[in-house]
């Protein structure tokens, strides 16, 4: 089996067995990263990656991740390695510190080979909002990989790296995972420190893994979870993340979200998801339809809360301490307005405007305030559902990968890409997408979610289904 087809877990085993080395693995994946026909990468850090690989190979005690290469979404700060958040605003910006979750992986022996492309400031569902060109879907380069973590998804699907980190606010890990036929997970809100994640919507943002197997995702997760004193919203994680091994689902109750298996979903997507759901009983589980009465308001709620928080989070981009600065501004107001007009793309501007409006005097209660109340209702819906079932299932995305340019003219049509993932984000629940089949040759993702802190069970369920599904498709032209 070619190196690139090995999962990260297998690559670690190979290093441990002496069959390969970190340097060999890193060098091989660097070559693929640099031959980047999909524009997955914004930066490839060859010198430092090889130097780190060499260092790891020389250590007396091999660290757990054994020098296996990883790619990091460009929303995560990496000290001295250019971090752009997909924006012109941060072109050439070198952070002065490293994000906690990244530092934890580096300490565990992961080798960062590069930073991946994304929708600007994580705002988008297709990576077409990147200031550095879109990323192409390895399954069909006329189509999008999803977003906002498009580059992190495509580089794993294209086997440029075995795994990567993304960030998810309304679906930005799960949706690209589905569109790229890989595993993507967003943990419980607060499970992974946000310190160093360039903020989009503070109460929704979470870092999470992309991988080609559920076990790989679990492995990455296990090295990142846990309280970080630098993030006041990060959680004490008492139960360690276990490597899943379940082959069956005996006694499991799976709730299928009625509202998300209807007309808003592509028939091909629905069919692929349904056939996976139909496997549950054979594996010993029970399928139950559940209702989330307020899920339909999820999109509206999200598109009030997220832009509002973003409008404040992005206000720090003012051309004073870092980032783009308008040239020759005579007075302060001009400096601010031109810097921000030049540095931000249209979608970012749109969301800043929307968010600023939702918070502004006279509108707060009606918009932001109201949205926060709907959020409470959505959380209650889930609480009620989980009183009856152990996990909920739905398609991850209403469609397979759409074509480049297909939804860029109408912002709302782009926002609709996230109807399945958003309600779960609003409730802060752990959730992942696993590939469950193809529709017209394009991958379909099944989304699973559980109550807060139920990562271990969720991973076991995903693992058992992954085994049963046996998704072994590879994008054309990849894997040679």
């Amino acid at each position, binding site marked *: 089996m070619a190196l690139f087809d090995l999962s990260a877990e297998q690559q670690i085993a190979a290093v441990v067995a002496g069959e390969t080395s970190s340097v060999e693995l890193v060098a091989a994946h660097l070559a693929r990263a640099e031959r980047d026909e999909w524009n997955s990468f914004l930066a490839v850090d060859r010198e430092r990656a090889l130097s780190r690989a060499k260092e790891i190979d020389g250590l007396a005690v091999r660290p757990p991740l054994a020098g296996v290469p990883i790619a990091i979404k460009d929303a995560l*700060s990496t000290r001295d390695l250019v971090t752009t958040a997909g924006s012109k605003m941060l072109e050439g910006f070198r952070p002065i510190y490293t994000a906690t979750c990244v530092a934890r992986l580096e300490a565990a022996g992961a080798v960062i080979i590069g930073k991946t492309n994304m929708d600007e400031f994580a705002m988008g569902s297709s990576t077409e909002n990147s200031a550095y060109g879109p990323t192409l879907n390895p399954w069909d380069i006329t189509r999008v990989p999803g977003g906002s973590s498009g580059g992190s998804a495509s580089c794993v699907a294209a086997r440029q790296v075995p795994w990567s980190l993304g960030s998810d606010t309304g679906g930005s890990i799960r949706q690209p995972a589905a569109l790229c036929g890989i595993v993507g997970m967003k943990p419980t809100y607060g499970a992974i420190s946000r310190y160093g*994640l360039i903020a989009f919507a503070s109460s929704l943002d979470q870092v999470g893994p992309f991988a080609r197997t559920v076990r790989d995702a679990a492995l990455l997760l296990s090295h990142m979870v846990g309280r970080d004193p630098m993030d006041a919203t990060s959680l004490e994680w008492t139960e360690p993340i276990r490597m899943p091994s379940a082959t069956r689902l005996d006694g499991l109750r799976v709730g299928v979200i009625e509202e998300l298996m209807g007309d808003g979903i592509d028939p091909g997507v629905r069919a692929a998801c349904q056939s996976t759901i139909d496997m549950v009983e054979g594996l010993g589980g029970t399928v139950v339809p559940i209702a989330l009465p307020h899920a339909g308001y999820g999109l509206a709620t999200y598109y009030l809360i997220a832009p509002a928080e973003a409008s404040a989070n992005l206000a720090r981009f003012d051309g004073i*301490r870092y980032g783009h600065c308008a040239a020759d501004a005579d007075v302060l107001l001009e400096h601010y307005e031109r810097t921000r007009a030049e540095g931000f793309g249209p979608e970012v501007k749109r969301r800043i405007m929307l968010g*600023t409006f939702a*918070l502004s005097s006279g509108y707060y209660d009606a918009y932001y305030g109201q949205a926060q109340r709907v959020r409470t209702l959505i959380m209650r819906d889930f609480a009620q559902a989980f009183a009856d079932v152990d996990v909920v299932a739905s398609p991850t995305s209403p469609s397979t990968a759409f074509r480049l340019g297909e939804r860029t003219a109408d912002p709302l049509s782009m926002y609709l890409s996230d109807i399945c993932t958003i309600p779960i984000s609003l409730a802060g629940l752990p959730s992942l997408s696993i590939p469950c089949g193809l529709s017209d040759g394009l991958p379909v993702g099944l989304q699973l979610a559980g109550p807060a802190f139920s990562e271990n069970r969720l991973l076991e369920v995903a693992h058992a289904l992954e085994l049963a599904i046996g998704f072994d498709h590879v994008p054309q032209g990849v894997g040679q």
Partner: protein
Amino acid sequence: MSDVQWEAVIGIEIHAQLLTATKMFCGCALSFGDPANTHTCPVCLAHPGALPVVNAEAIRLAVIAGHALGCEIPERSVFSRKNYFYPDLPKAYQISQFDEPICGPGRFRYLTEDGEKFLGITRAHLEEDAAKLNHFGGEGRRADALGSVVDFNRGGTPLLEIVTEPELHNGTDAAAFLKQLRQTLVHLGITDGSMEQGSMRADANISIRPLGVTTLGTKTELKNMNSFTFLERGIAAEIERQIGIVESGGTVTQETLHYEPATGHISSLRSKEEAHDYRYFPEPDLVPVVPDRGWVDEIRAALPELPVDRRDRWMREYELTFEDAEVLSEPAALGDYFEQVAADAPPKSAANWVRGDLRAFLRERGQEPWESDVAPGAVAQIIRMVEAREISMPSAKQVLAHIVAHGGDPKEVVASLGLGAIQDESALIAIVDELIAANPAQAAQLREGKEKLVGFFVGQAMKATQGRADPGRIGELVRERVAAS
């Protein structure tokens, strides 16, 4: 001149920098005049991805201050973002508190010459200070500058903002309140309260209305007066200005003003500024603070005697004047010293001696009583010796001066310098008679009623006895003996 009686309505907003070791939301140490940008980190520089974490000590100090202000400490407190753009605000929002402050309504008692007064406290909350903006070019003031340079050392320093009810009516009371508020906060270790250095800032909101009217007039905000005197004067000037406007038929504009102490002139600070829409919303990066009730109660129980209460006690129990109590209470160490002296000597005398000669003698040596080697007990002893007429007042001062310079025990100093008072009546009479005989002209004038000359004879007696005679008794004897002779 109009017939309308005007009432001024004034509220004060105070910002006090807290005496924590580190900033409000990050671990950078607080800076005291250090080189620019040497006390910063990704958090207080607002780098992308940085996050705030609340300083526990700031919460504790705020709760202490809240108790001293008679405030309720609510069950739950939440931080909010206050959004606006300015170069000294790196996140372009200040993390502050909006609708759930750490301290709720309270009431502060303060003392004036006319007795005790109370000022309602609306709330007190925590927030972070802005960075320092230094203007260059022009005259170094914002309006004429060519540009500005930002130093982020100060940015993120914890601030306690205290807002009073608009219940003051004149600058004098405002200044008295502020002085005693400051004294209280300094005594409790909340802040170092330096108005000159900006670790405590006060803004006044001022409006006027006809006496008897209950609705509030349009208010103006007088910002950043950095001394109590300027505050008092500034408020008075602004009241006058507003009355002047209204009486000549105009209306007061809501604006932010600056009082220039040198000229007494009031000018508009922000002429072109629109009212800010701060778009407050709860800070998603921070979770609520729910102070443990037991801990809150412990803090209240552990509060030391507050300066206002101490001054009030001195005025009641020791019968000190308002002024004596005020002077002796500042700083707290002086008050402690005074209390120790007053424990062993009549308090009123103790007050005079401590604030008077003791302090004066020590100041010549660049010291204060609590820093010196002069034990309070020694001062008390000197006072008791005077009361017991063992030494005269002038001798007592000599003894004190000697102890300040050389140390020593008062009784021993009296003995070694031979300063014991002449107790023997007959000896005193003999001295007086001798002086009367030696100064017949003055004696005659005194007999005729020129009272002043008592002082002459007392002075002569002091000379003759090297200050060991009690001047009071000499004066009495002079009158008797002159009349009798």
